[in-house]
């Protein structure tokens, strides 16, 4: 099998596996082939790359930013940046972690940009829900709004730490790596975010704070 055929096969395989993240050795092999195809400039490679990781990146963005009217643009940004910098990825087996870091970088940029822009904005930014959440209960939708309203008050780094650890459920090393900081730094941020989140919930949103005491009820009420 020559090089171009191997790339085509990898792309074909990845395309079939769209929206599914592969695990273990197969994933590593697939990632290696995918990175090779991306570096070689295969015309189908970007689409295959997106099919393989689009959902994952969107999920990470959603975890960090919540419902966001710029979500589509940010998702696009992540892949444009990744494609532009794929040449710097030396170890293809770390593609997913590398992409996670890229995603967090883009999300942090969006958060910081908005934070910087706050002082020039005399009216609250228009936060249009870009996609309706098909949850059945108003209470459920309310929970999302409340959680992200509190997260919105946190420093971007702390907010990211909170989202990666608690919402996405990454392990501490994974979350630290995705944030591009040492484990110790991430732990500090997480601790700060815990404290700040609870303090703000207690101060500004007692209902959310009370909800923290009985989170499972949200689930039971919906089921």
């Amino acid at each position: 099998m020559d090089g171009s055929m191997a790339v085509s096969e990898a792309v074909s395989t990845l395309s079939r596996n769209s929206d599914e993240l592969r695990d273990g050795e197969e994933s590593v092999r697939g990632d290696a082939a995918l990175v090779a195809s991306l570096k070689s400039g295969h015309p189908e490679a970007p689409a295959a790359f997106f099919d393989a990781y689009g959902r994952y990146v969107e999920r990470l963005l959603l975890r960090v930013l919540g419902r966001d009217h710029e979500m589509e643009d940010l998702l696009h940004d992540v892949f444009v940046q990744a494609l532009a910098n794929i040449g710097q990825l030396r170890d293809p087996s770390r593609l997913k972690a590398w992409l996670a870091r890229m995603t967090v970088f883009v999300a942090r940029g969006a958060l910081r940009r908005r934070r910087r822009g706050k002082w020039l904005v005399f009216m609250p930014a228009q936060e249009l829900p870009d996609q309706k959440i098909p949850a059945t209960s108003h209470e459920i939708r309310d929970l999302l709004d409340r959680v992200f309203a509190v997260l919105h008050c946190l420093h971007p780094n702390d907010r990211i730490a909170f989202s990666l650890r608690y919402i996405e459920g990454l392990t501490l090393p994974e979350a630290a790596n995705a944030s591009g900081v040492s484990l110790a730094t991430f732990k500090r941020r997480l601790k700060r975010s815990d404290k700040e989140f609870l303090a703000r919930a207690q101060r500004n949103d007692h209902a959310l704070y009370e909800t923290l005491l009985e989170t499972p009820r949200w689930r039971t009420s919906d089921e």
Partner: protein
Amino acid sequence: MNERLERLGAEVARIQNEALADGRRRNAVRGRLRRAPVLSERPALRFRRPALGFALASGALAVILLMWPGESEVIGYRAGEQSVSSRVDEWIAAPNNQTLPIVFSDGSTVKLSPGSRARVRRLSAVGASVELEHGEATVHVHHGSETRWALEAGPFVVHVIGTRFRVQWEPSEEVFALEVFEGAVRLSGPRGTRHVSRSDGEVRAKLRPPVQVKPEPEPIIEPSPAPSPAVRAPRPAVATSSDDGVEQIQRPSSEPRPLSSRPPPAPLELNLPPKIPEVVSDETPASEAPALAESDPPPIQTEESAPVSEPAWKELAENSEYEEVLSSLSPEQFEEAVWQGDASDLVNLAAAARRTRDARAGYIYNVVRSRFSGTDSAANAAFMLGRMQFHAGAPGVAATWLETYLRERPNGRFAREAAGRLIEAYLRADDTSRATAAAQRYLARHPRGPHAALARSVLQ
């Protein structure tokens, strides 16, 4: 608390995953990636000409600095002879034999008549908000170009710019009175908003609650299917508006179960401790306290009669080990904790019970309402009971509790939540007429609240 945050995060993730099922956004991005060159430049929001960007930013900064109103400090206040304070939500009570002036640093004063009680709810650079719990206050607000002052009394709010007026509020009779001596104020109440000036003389209003709910005697959940007379009517009812002052809401005849005037025992709390000791609240005249059954535990021990050694629950409570209180104490010790602890202890204890899904949570909240009637804790307990009943599948009972909370604390910290839940509760109870009324009230007060969409859908 980490575990709870993880649970919350997992719940958020679960809800978000539903949104991820919609692949339209990914399809759109996929299309963009296919159309655009692979290594296209990111559409970054950068100034192509840094000098121009810097100049614009500098200009904007200069404008902002010129328009900046200057350093503004939150005003402080002094109650009687106390030192200047900026603390909020601390009750200030006037002695029974003299007035108590609260002097604010902006020159405004609130004079509490003897026996009255109030607290400062908010302080800002241009004013304050004071809540009169009961009694009478004579207010003089110093006029300024930006002055924003408010005085809350029950469901009424007097918005002031600069004036002198007197407010009286008797929550037990739900009677409100306002007399303006100078200028004019804007008075908001359950029936809307109006301007009141000196020429109006004294304005009096008697509250008409939206549903017939008599707050006293507080509902106590029976410990067993056969209710003990000792748990009923632990103290006489606080005087409420008479029947002619209470607005009746008719339920559709087809409704299977009418809402009672007070919530029935909660189904959640059936496995309660076997006995509920009788308690006489502070407000109860001794002569009217019902006699205790012989088998009942002794009433609350007064400070003088308290044992020297602190009870086990107290030590645990002081260490905030409320879950331990629930799990390690005997039923008798638990009862002791519930009937001797202060409001804060009980609220924390109930929260711990909810955390551990202990069915005694509702019982504890009922005790809070019984023992600390008229306080924020009691009102909040009503809200919590409403929530618990809502989740327990008893929307009718939940609605009654939520109405109780809203009546007792129309501007309370759970008011928006309670108002929204009330709509849901009535909807689940198939009570369309009350759901509509609740939706109207919600939109009037919280037009942009989280339940606004639901409220509008109900009205449509």
